[in-house]
């Protein structure tokens, strides 16, 4: 075989309860040493299954590998049994794997040293002492400080990013020639994501390893990939060099993906979501799998489409050529986003909000101290405005939201809702007021009661606050709400798991809207969703705001999303707001070093731009409230920090009325 790793005509299916479902359908790809190959596609498109199948790591019932060859260095490893010595030598030895969830991919009851050394001993056949040395070396390579001391620690003692580094160390243990990284950064913060990916690609380049990177984030693809495979419904729909895919997008699905993501460099663009929901392996269409969501589909799409060469190493499975698509695109031109710039009174005013958790100790659970989570933050939101709140994981965004909603103990400061301080109110008194302030949750899966028809969930606030007089009115209102969020009212008797993620989030939005609140707090409402659906939800929220004059506190860790939707943005770090400003201004003229680092870490889905951007990595780990520095909370990761930063805590300094920054080094 001419390629180092080549997979040919891989087919995988799952035996389900009712029928067999095809997860990977005739997929072929290859990778060369030193190359970074990316797989992109929506959730469920078969990216993981493809890789797992190639290494025979799928659970064998229910999965069935129906056919295909996997050639590695000229040997078809598919001929070996899953537990055969040859296959085992390949796994870990020739091919290293890194999985999506760093939290669950390490054995919780074994020290990381054991877990790394196990791999080393297995493939390098060396003594324990040698293995230990190698493990230390690996940990050093992946950037874990003080490796020798940490070898005996357990996975739970590491942060997510560090665990992912350990996973990488394990994957690298035997210096494999191929590394498969299955969404290695999806669960991580942007800053950590950038660190991990940089690490991976640099190690791959150094060792001349082929890196197969699976992701659904197109930004990442643009930054690192050399070649790209776009998967949809178990098939590769487009493949080619990165610049070609971005610059000369030939498949409508790839186009859809690109248009659906908000970008940092967007100028007031309305997102273009891919309509409909993602592929379902159970119900396969004839012909092009994408045709029911494709705006260019025609009758010819019902016929089977093979990948066609379209030049420059790019292949696409669409019947239309690049030019034909371009032609049709002009007809449906992109619409601009309308702007409203008039905001009303302050709906919500937060003044010096502090949240603490008690630390308990001893036999009697005495309160031994306090852990400050939110360290005195202030902001306000005007009617019809969206305030974005960004920050790394654990900085206290959710805590802020919950504190405002009075879901936490240990809150101090003032929270004025329509001018009235709600913090001193008792739960009973506040209960009737709850209809004025609602929330949309991050996880559409866990935020809906899995056992209730969604109609009951959406209608519940109506009943609780007695907003309807009778059953008829109730039904009417619920139907209205469903229509409002773009759901068929006929679906209202289904339960949550009968909806797709996006639809569930719509239900969540409908529920938040039911009581016609003054303000809605959105806690990362789109971060759990696929890019295509993310766009739908963002558009929906924008539309609803326009129509109903809604006010949002929009929490996210994805700066591009926040920038897209918010009028103003507050950047949070370790329980403090370090910078707050109008969104355009913030992105154009970020001042705080942390904000700058954040912006820098966000990839932009365009290889051309990515290549020109200067890359500055934010050092260090995601902060923890347990280890809060004395002065400026950011001082230990900041390049500019000096003595004063380490001793004093900077206050927000206002430049004009709108732009506040909490940093000594700026003014």
């Amino acid at each position, binding site marked *: 075989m001419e390629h180092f790793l080549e997979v040919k005509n891989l087919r995988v299916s799952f035996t389900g309860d009712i029928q067999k479902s095809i997860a990977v359908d005739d997929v072929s790809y290859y990778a060369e040493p030193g190359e970074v190959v990316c797989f992109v596609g929506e959730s469920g498109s078969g990216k993981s299954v493809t890789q797992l199948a190639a290494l025979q790591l799928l659970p064998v019932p229910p999965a069935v590998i129906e056919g295909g060859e996997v050639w590695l260095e000229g040997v078809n490893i598919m001929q070996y049994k899953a537990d055969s010595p040859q296959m085992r030598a390949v796994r870990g030895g020739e091919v290293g794997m890194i999985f999506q969830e760093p939290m669950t991919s390490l054995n919780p009851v074994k020290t990381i040293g054991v877990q790394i050394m196990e791999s080393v001993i297995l493939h390098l056949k060396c003594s324990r002492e040698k293995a230990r040395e190698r493990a230390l070396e690996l940990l050093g390579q992946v950037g874990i400080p003080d490796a020798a001391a940490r070898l005996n620690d357990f996975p739970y003692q590491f942060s997510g990013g560090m665990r992912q580094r350990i996973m990488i160390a394990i994957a690298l243990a035997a210096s494999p020639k191929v590394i498969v990284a299955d969404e290695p950064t999806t669960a991580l913060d942007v800053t950590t994501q950038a660190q991990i990916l940089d690490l991976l690609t640099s190690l791959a380049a150094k060792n001349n390893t082929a890196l197969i990177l699976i992701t659904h984030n197109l930004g990442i693809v643009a930054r690192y990939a050399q070649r790209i495979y776009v998967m949809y419904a178990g098939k590769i729909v487009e493949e080619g060099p990165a610049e070609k895919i971005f610059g000369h997008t030939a498949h409508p699905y790839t186009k859809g993906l690109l248009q659906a993501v908000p970008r940092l460099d967007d100028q007031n663009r309305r997102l273009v979501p891919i309509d409909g929901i993602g592929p379902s392996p159970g119900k396969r269409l004839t012909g092009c799998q994408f045709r029911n969501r494709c705006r260019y589909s025609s009758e010819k799409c019902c016929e089977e489409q093979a990948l066609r060469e379209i030049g420059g190493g790019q292949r696409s499975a669409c019947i239309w050529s690049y030019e034909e698509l371009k032609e049709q695109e002009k007809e449906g031109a992109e619409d601009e986003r309308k702007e409203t710039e008039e905001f009303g009174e302050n709906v919500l005013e937060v003044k010096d909000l502090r949240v603490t958790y008690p630390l308990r100790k001893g036999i009697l659970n005495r309160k031994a101290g306090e852990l400050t989570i939110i360290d005195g933050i202030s902001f306000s939101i005007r009617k019809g405005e969206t305030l974005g709140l960004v920050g790394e994981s654990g900085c206290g965004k959710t805590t802020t939201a919950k504190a405002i909603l009075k879901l936490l103990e240990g809150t101090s400061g003032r929270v004025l809702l329509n001018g009235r301080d709600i913090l001193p109110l008792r739960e009973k008194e506040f209960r009737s007021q709850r209809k004025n302030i609602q929330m949309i949750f991050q996880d559409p899966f866990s935020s809906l009661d899995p056992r209730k028809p969604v109609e009951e969930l959406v209608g*519940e606030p109506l009943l609780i606050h007695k907003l309807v007089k009778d059953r008829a009115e109730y039904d009417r209102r619920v139907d209205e709400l469903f229509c409002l969020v773009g759901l068929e009212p006929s679906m209202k008797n289904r339960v949550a798991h009968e909806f797709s993620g996006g639809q569930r989030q719509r239900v969540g939005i409908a529920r938040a809207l039911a009581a016609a609140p003054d303000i809605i707090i959105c806690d990362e409402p789109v971060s759990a969703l696929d890019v295509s659906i993310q766009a739908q939800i963002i558009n929906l929220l924008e539309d609803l705001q326009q129509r109903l004059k809604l006010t949002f506190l929009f929490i996210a860790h994805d700066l591009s999303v926040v920038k897209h939707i918010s009028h103003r943005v507050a950047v949070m770090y370790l329980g403090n707001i370090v910078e707050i400003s109008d969104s355009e201004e913030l992105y154009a003229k970020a001042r705080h070093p942390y904000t700058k680092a954040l912006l820098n870490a966000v990839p932009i889905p365009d290889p051309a731009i990515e290549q020109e951007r200067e890359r500055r990595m934010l050092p260090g780990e995601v902060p923890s409230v347990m280890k809060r520095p004395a002065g400026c909370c950011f001082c230990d990761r900041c390049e500019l920090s000096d003595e004063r930063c380490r001793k004093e805590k900077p206050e927000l300094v206002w430049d004009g009325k709108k732009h506040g920054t909490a940093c000594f080094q700026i003014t």
Partner: protein
Amino acid sequence: MDKETKTKIHLFFRRLFKRKLVMLAAILVLFFILTAIFAPLLTPYEPNKQDLTAILQKPSASHWLGTDEAGRDVLTRIFYGARTSLIIGVVSVLISAVAGVTLGLVSAYYGGLLNTVISRFIDVLMSLPSLMLALALGLVFGHSIGSLMIILGISTIPTYTRMMSAQVLSVKNQDYITAERVAGARNSRILISHILPNCFSPILVLLTSNIGMTILAESSLSFLGMGINPPTASWGAMVSAGCSKLLLNPVYGIAPGICVCLLVYGFNVLGDGLRDVLDPRLRGSL
């Protein structure tokens, strides 16, 4: 929508019975339920009709499994005993489940002092050997079916409470419960219509296998002479009475013992099957 629920139920059973063992277990349980219901039709004898001239006879054409120490037909008593054993099993499990689940629900949800009090109470119950508890309560309450059910019920309360607490603790921090609080729902509403239904599937599994446990416990109590009041036929009483007459009519002790085994086995396998079906991670691999 009615149709939808129908297909859902249909699907549920199809998954459940896809494995032959579960099917077999279901048939077993059903079989015993049917014999219990139709006991009078299955036998020409009365369960309590004695024939003191024909005691402890070996199996014969007229008495397929022989007779017991009062000349009653053993097979007939097994049929009727199925009633007692099933009723005892089901009702006492319901009693303990209702009590245990309520305690667990309330203590885990509210926490604080209530939790402390309930947990200590459960600790106390747990510290007492269940048989001794049943025995002591039996002396206090007597040995009617009713009190036996209460007694057996009380001694299994802790299991439910513990399990329920753990469930509630995991569910109570889920976003959908927070969502209810955000919507302004009262605690009672949250507890009853959201937390309870979502904690129930492991309890359901426990329920089925506990029915078996209770039937077993009843036979142990009978063996120690603390069983149900005569002349009511119950498998437990028969096993223990029959065991001491193994040399006279071996079938008398062995047959009800096998019935206990089969029924309890049926319930257990059914419970396991339910667990597998209710566990979404196992779907498709069954």
